[in-house]
């Protein structure tokens, strides 16, 4: 068995890698002394993949919104009942989540890792979907959708994406809508499954106090090579560079206005380390401009325009990228005006190199802190994996980031023509 070992001495971590003949890669990050073992089986398929083609582009298929998430729910059903019961019998907690670009199945356990791991590998590879269970699931997911519809933080964020994008499917709720899921049936679920759940489109990650070679042996035993590798072409609609709308508003039962705003980025179709570099550069910039140590944050806070809920983030994937920042404010427009004014101000006087250095070091320290948590490691690892990036590269990118590059990204990203604002007002 071929096992690759990669050491990350500066953060005291080691990663073991194994490639199965099907193309499935498995990663093990041992965490000595930890009680919990956390295993994930993920596919490069998420809510944004609602259009794709097979057979080298001949058949273009458009599937109902929310289907990746629906499939995630349905995989737990097996021929002999729900796989949740089997995990529960072992005392472990199975779970799954669907993101924009991936679907992730996982469990965490403290004992009987082997049995749990085999269960995970087996159930994800053996769907058993019936029309009857699909119909029942529509009610359960319907309630999940309603829960998110009443969740102001969720709505304010998706409304911002809707303001950014004309067509990009990232603007569509991950679970779809009650209307869109009504069109889902067994056949279309199997089509998606057969397209995106081939081992070559997937990955396995185990974090915890485990023996890597035993994990890889189990993968060897339990992964079915399934013959032909499907040739998947993910189709994304042409998306204009400009934002769709500058401002969107919704009314919900909230006590005061909630807002999210940000810049739609026009540079994103980078994979690998470039993608990570850009992500970190924008995050450093956001921290410099509006982090807690910034003058802007302190002015806004002192004037009562923002409170502790204020936060910021940047996302970059193969078909989109955007920054988003917000929280609660009695006057989101005033916050927007101040942000614009501050960025203009920095544009004219230039970025401060001292704060750049200080924030870069702080972010690197906070990255180390995340390595304490098995869940955080798993989550971070998977969130960058399908962009051809390794999570441990973060540390090197922090170390090797250059001020000139950050200046360049500053000029590119903060384009006022692409600034959108989303507000939830009290009903």
């Amino acid at each position, binding site marked *: 068995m071929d096992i690759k070992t990669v050491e990350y001495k500066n*953060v*005291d971590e080691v990663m073991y890698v194994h490639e199965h003949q099907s193309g499935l890669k498995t990663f093990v990050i041992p965490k000595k*002394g*930890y*009680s*919990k073992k956390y295993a994930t089986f993920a596919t490069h398929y998420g809510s944004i993949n609602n259009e794709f083609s097979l057979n080298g582009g001949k058949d273009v298929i458009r599937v109902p919104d929310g289907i990746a998430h629906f499939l995630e729910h349905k995989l737990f059903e097996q021929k002999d009942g*729900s796989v*949740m*019961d089997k*995990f*529960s*019998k*072992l*005392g*472990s*907690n*199975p779970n799954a989540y669907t993101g924009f670009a991936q679907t992730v199945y996982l469990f*965490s*356990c*403290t*004992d009987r890792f082997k049995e749990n791991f085999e269960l995970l590998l087996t159930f994800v590879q053996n769907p058993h979907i019936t029309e009857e269970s699909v119909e*029942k699931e529509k*009610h*359960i997911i319907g*309630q*999940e959708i*309603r*829960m998110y*519809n*009443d*969740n*102001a*933080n969720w709505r304010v964020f998706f409304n911002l994406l809707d303001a950014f994008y004309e067509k990009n499917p990232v603007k569509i709720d991950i679970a779809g809508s009650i209307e869109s899921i009504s069109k889902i049936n067994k056949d279309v679920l199997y089509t998606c499954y057969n397209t995106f759940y081939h081992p070559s489109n997937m990955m396995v990650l185990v974090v915890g106090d485990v023996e890597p070679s035993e994990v890889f042996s189990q993968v060897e035993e339990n992964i079915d090579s399934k013959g032909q590798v499907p040739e998947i072409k993910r189709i994304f609609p042409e998306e204009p560079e400009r934002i769709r709308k500058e401002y969107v508003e919704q009314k*919900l*039962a*909230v*006590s005061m206005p*909630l807002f999210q705003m940000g810049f739609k980025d026009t540079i994103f179709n980078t994979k690998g380390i470039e993608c990570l570099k850009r992500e970190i550069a924008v995050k450093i910039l956001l921290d410099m401009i509006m982090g*807690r*140590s910034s003058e802007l*944050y*302190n002015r806004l806070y*002192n004037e*009562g325009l923002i*409170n*502790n809920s204020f936060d910021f983030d940047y996302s970059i994937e193969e078909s989109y990228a955007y920054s988003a920042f917000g929280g*609660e404010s009695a006057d989101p427009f005033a916050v927007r005006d101040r942000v614009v004014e501050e960025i203009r101000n920095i544009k004219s006087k230039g970025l401060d190199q001292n704060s750049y250095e*200080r*924030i870069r*070091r*702080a*972010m*690197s*320290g*906070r990255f*180390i*802190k995340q*390595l*304490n*948590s098995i869940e955080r490691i798993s989550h971070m690892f998977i969130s960058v994996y399908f962009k051809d990036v390794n999570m441990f590269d973060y540390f090197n990118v922090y170390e090797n980031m250059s001020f000139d590059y950050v200046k360049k990204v500053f000029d590119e990203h903060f384009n006022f023509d692409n600034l959108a604002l989303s507000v939830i007002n009290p009903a």
Partner: protein
Amino acid sequence: MSTLLSESHVSQIAAFNGIKVFHIKSQKFKTNSINIFFHDDLSKERATKNALLPAVLRRGCEGYPTIRDISLKLEELYGAVFDCGVTKKGESQIIQFYLEYVSDKYAKSDANLTQKTFDLLLSIITKPIVENNAFKAEYVEQESKNLKEMIEGRVNDKVQYAVEKCLEEMCKNEPFGIYDYGSVEDLAKINAQNLYEHYKYFLETLPMYVFIFGDLDDGQIKYIIDGLSGIKRGNIKVVGKTGIESKAGDVKDITERMNVTQGKLCLGFRTNISPDSNDYYKLMVYNSILGGGLHSKLFQNVREKAGLAYYVFSRLEKFKGLMVISSGIEIGNRDKAMEIIKNQLEDIKNGNISDYEYEASIKSMETGIKSLKDSQLQVVDFYLSQHIIGTDDGPNDMIEKIKQVTKKDVVDIAGKIQLDTVYFLTSLE
């Protein structure tokens, strides 16, 4: 290698002036943390003031008079993290100050992070900005406004709001009915002078618990203890125990209307069981069978069989001996959901507990308790809770006691649990 397992042991390394200091020596994590807790009775007179205090203190201190100065310092210290806030554990109010920073090996050899971060933490707590024998008025006004927004903002998270509201309505006439962060009404009475007066009481008399987590050496520990000994303390207050009330009278039925699309149904129960009694472990198993996970009766029947909900669970408030069932449902399905929930409660009472439900419950709790050792904050919270309850049981003792609970014990416990309040959050007509 023995240090690797020390998350199972906490050593009290010092006790003076009403300050108990604990050290959890561990090399497992890449950061160290220091948590300082102040412990008070949850009371209408002080809850809001206690909630406002950390918010004002975090605004600035001697040497670092603004949020910006504190943040700049934390960034310089390799991105150390500081936070503070309040929670309630039963009828205790806990005011927490938290600090986490990277271990020495990830910083330059002369970084002295333990000393420098602790100095900052201690200054934030003990050296606030004072003007004319009062807090800085501007800070108090702004934080009062923020706290008001936060209290009013509880409705924004409907899932959590429904659970808290159910329990508060249930305990309206007991201290537990007070929200962790106090009330808008009491906030209006607070100013820079009376809050500063309260601060003196807070710092001088409230019992303090300090948890140091990480691989610190004797010199670093001594530095922290010396710093804590310098805090001027007076007569230490004796904090009361949470009263476990039993229920009398009819079930309260409360409906609240808002602009929502999903109904939130919550049922509040009195368990009549105190967390330091042996019955408490039986109650834990009872709760797990009822609604403590995917194996539970509520999940299996309300969600998997009837398809009525996406989420449904039961949860204990162990300090006060309460239990709450919570679920998000189609508004028109309220009665149907109620019936299924009541059937599950009856089933346990009648001993209809399958081997699967019983065994999966015990194992799931075992996994949960073992897992908490992987998080510094969870370990600290565990030991703090045990101290407040007054039990010495560590995680392993807990697991042993849970394993001894039988199905019959669970059925016996079921007889003690009384429904007190049904709360339903629903749409505007």
